[in-house]
């Protein structure tokens, strides 16, 4: 059995073991991750609505994975340059974030309607480069469901993403990334 299969299976087996001790593990395959580049010349936005997110309230961990080719742009040319020239998605098909909250949230009552602010620290692997991310996230509890939102900024140079000089003024050196998980399902 190959590594990928083991990884996929492990998500479920680990999830199952957590569910048996506290049922605090949640996931969704339909989270939205978007990014924005804003310059005086042009604003660029791309969106991916198929990100995989796992939140474990028992261990304060959050992970997300997203397929680079799944980002959709308004203009096909931008999408092609993004995949072929900048993110090299054939070589690096995924971006992965693994992080943790700074406070205990295991005792939260899911039936309570409330929003909690947490600090998140973790590693983002993008374009084959790993960098530490520190950000703030909002955990929303509503009607026995949990969802999360967050945003943070990254520098393209930190991830060795090279933008040709000819379009240097069109693409911001700093990219804003927004994460909106939507409602996560509890693993049973």
């Amino acid at each position, binding site marked *: 059995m*190959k590594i*990928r299969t083991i990884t996929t299976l492990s998500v479920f087996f680990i999830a199952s073991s957590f569910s048996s001790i506290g049922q605090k593990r949640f996931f969704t*395959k*339909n989270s939205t991750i978007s990014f924005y580049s804003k310059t005086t010349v042009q604003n660029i936005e791309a969106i991916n609505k198929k990100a995989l997110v796992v939140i474990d309230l028992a261990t304060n961990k959050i992970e997300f*994975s*997203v397929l680079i080719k799944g980002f959709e*742009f308004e203009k096909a040319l931008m999408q092609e340059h993004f995949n072929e020239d900048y993110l090299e998605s054939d070589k690096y098909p*995924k971006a992965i974030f693994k992080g943790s909250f700074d406070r205990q949230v295991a005792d939260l009552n899911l039936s309570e309607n409330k929003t909690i602010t947490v600090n998140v620290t973790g590693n983002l692997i993008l374009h084959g480069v790993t960098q530490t991310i520190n950000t703030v996230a909002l955990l929303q509890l509503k009607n026995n469901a949990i969802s999360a939102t967050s945003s943070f900024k990254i520098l393209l140079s930190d991830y060795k993403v090279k933008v040709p000089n000819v379009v240097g003024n069109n693409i911001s050196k700093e990219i804003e990334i927004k994460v909106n998980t939507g409602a996560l399902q509890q693993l049973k």
Partner: protein
Amino acid sequence: MLTKKIKNIVIAICSIVVAVGIYAYTEYNRKSPDLTNVKAIDYITASALINTYSNEEEMANKKYLGRVIQVNGTVVEVINQQDTAFTIVLGDPSFMSRVSCTMDKNHIVSAKKYDIGNVVNVKGICTGYLMDIELNNCLIVE
């Protein structure tokens, strides 16, 4: 004579500039392609695609990533994200992974005719493998 030659050169240069301008404008504003008339590089069942990716993701990516494929399978789930995204999921309840097909906005109406249990052919662009194999810009091939 010379004036006429210069005039022709100017016209030729202007024509080239206009043609390049039109091409650049069209190319810059080009939208993602509708796959109706795009030929798939492979026709495969959902089960076979899942097996291929589960066994050897890297090899599967070399073959399918970014390519148009047509997948035959049984609908196991329909996800309507408030009409901003419509996804038909193909697979087998006994498989952990599935094939998740996000429909092209222009083809959502025709996709809504199908429900769980229907066997369909979906054409789309393979964007890779997380927990499921993901296809974008999809349409149902009747």
